[in-house]
């Protein structure tokens, strides 16, 4: 009787097949984008397009030039560009990781507090929203000045700026997720005379996890942006922010270097994103319809 609806385990090689199909798809999209860039460039140069921007070798370097640039020395004394950029990425990555951790923890704490009380939510949520309308460029120098006055290392200040850009989606998702529990699931807990903490940890928190991870995916990439922007007012030169500023100055001579830097920054963002996705796979055990 019991054998009816039990899921058949997937065939042995299904995950391998799926991974291969995924890889092929990724490659196809990459080739497509590459073709689009080069096609647009060739047409633009041929017809002398001025809209939406002037298309020439400076505004749109060849993609192979960008990649080639990674394995060149920007000047004779410098190491290979990719070495410089990977070091910068590691530096920025550290700032972003700390910022992400602070933003996620802080965002969860604020969200949990606001989910707990409707009054607090009404009173405080507008200010949380308002905090996100102030441009990070206006906040960053203040954070740097404040924290420098209490002898905080500059890279930690940058992490705080990254956290500022990270916590918001986590707050919203936490409020939503913690209130997502079905009322009968709450009644069930009530029938066991469970207290608020037990309900929070055994029911509301696991229920909130898929929401939370959606927010963390957004925050993971935002933390990189926050770190890169935060490096500028802190005059940190060793990170990707410094590299971007530097290569932007030499853009008209070596546009491919800035593009190469962007590629590395994007790769760092994707790496962060994938770490969150992997963590989600490990942590969230939910029915398939609840998993994004």
């Amino acid at each position: 009787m019991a054998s009816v609806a039990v899921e058949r385990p997937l065939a042995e090689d299904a995950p391998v097949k799926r991974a291969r199909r995924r890889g092929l798809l990724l490659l196809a999209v990459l080739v497509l984008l590459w073709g689009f860039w080069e096609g647009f460039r060739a047409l633009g140069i041929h017809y002398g397009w001025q809209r939406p921007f002037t298309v020439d070798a400076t505004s749109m370097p060849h993609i192979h030039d960008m990649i080639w640039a990674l394995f060149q020395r920007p000047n004779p004394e410098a190491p290979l560009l990719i070495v410089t950029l990977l070091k910068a990425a590691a530096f920025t990555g550290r700032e972003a990781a700390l910022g992400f951790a602070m933003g996620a923890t802080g965002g969860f704490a604020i969200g949990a507090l606001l989910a707990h009380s409707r009054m607090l939510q009404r009173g405080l949520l507008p200010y949380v929203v308002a905090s996100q309308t102030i441009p990070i460029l206006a906040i960053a120098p203040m954070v740097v000045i404040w924290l420098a006055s209490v002898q905080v290392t500059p890279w930690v200040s940058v992490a705080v700026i990254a956290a500022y850009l990270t916590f918001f989606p986590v707050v919203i998702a936490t409020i939503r997720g913690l209130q997502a529990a079905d009322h009968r699931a709450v009644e069930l807990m009530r029938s066991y005379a469970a207290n608020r903490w037990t309900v929070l940890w055994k029911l509301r928190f696991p229920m909130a996890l898929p929401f939370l991870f959606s927010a963390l995916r957004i925050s993971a990439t935002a933390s990189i942006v926050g770190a890169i922007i935060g490096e500028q007012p802190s005059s940190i030169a060793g990170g990707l922010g410094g590299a971007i500023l530097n290569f932007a100055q030499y853009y008209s001579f070596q546009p491919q270097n800035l593009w190469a830097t962007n590629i590395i920054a994007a790769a760092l963002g994707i790496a962060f994103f994938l770490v969150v996705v992997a963590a989600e796979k490990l942590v969230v055990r939910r029915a398939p319809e609840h998993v994004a």
Partner: protein
Amino acid sequence: MSAVSIKNVSKEFKGGTKALEDIDLEIEQREFVSLIGPSGCGKSTLLRIVGDLIEPTSGGVTVNGKPARQARHDHDYGIVFQDPVLYDWRTVARNIALPLELAGWDRNRRSQRVDEMLDLVELRGFGEHHPWQLSGGMQQRVSIARALSFDPALLLMDEPFGALDEMTRERLNAELLRIWQASESTIVFVTHSIAEAVFLSTRVVVMSSRPGRVSKLIPIDLSQPRSAATREDPRFFELATEVREALHMGGGYDMPLAATGLSEGAT
């Protein structure tokens, strides 16, 4: 001492809807009592008041001589809803163990009890599955196992088989009777189905609506243990008819469309 004693219970919801008016009901130890009535007669509300999930506007409930709140804090209730309400991030075994965890049982005792429960509801070997991998009937059996795991004095069941097909429903009815006889529990059972109420119960409480009242108490004198043959017993039909007539007297049973002969397209 009565298992449940309901005295003068009335419930008025915000906005003035009278859900229940002056309910008096005594349920003895080891009884299996079904509450049956049209939609909106307040039978689920009454069940929730007994379980101290909502409070009555007036009147009171005692369970084994204790106020309902005290009984809830003493873990006297097992509750089964129409939906299984399983936590899908927990395995079947850990769903069954949830109330034991909250009651502070240690790991060994928990896993031993979970095994017993899986046997009881005939789901041995499914402990490590996740709820979404089971059929609806199996999920509801897990939910019953969870409700029974800590030997509650009182089992409250709110249309537990309402969402299942007729075949599964009849089989689970028989299983529930077996489980009830093997345990020490008193059961209060809410249902829409006359056949189910008569088959399961030692007593049927017929309710009428707007406001919800007890319109008739019908003792069910069918012999125990009951089986498939019980459903064909002439006495079964007499009792079912008695319940049906009591329902109609009590202000009309909300017939599902299919039962009135007006199937889809006719409206």
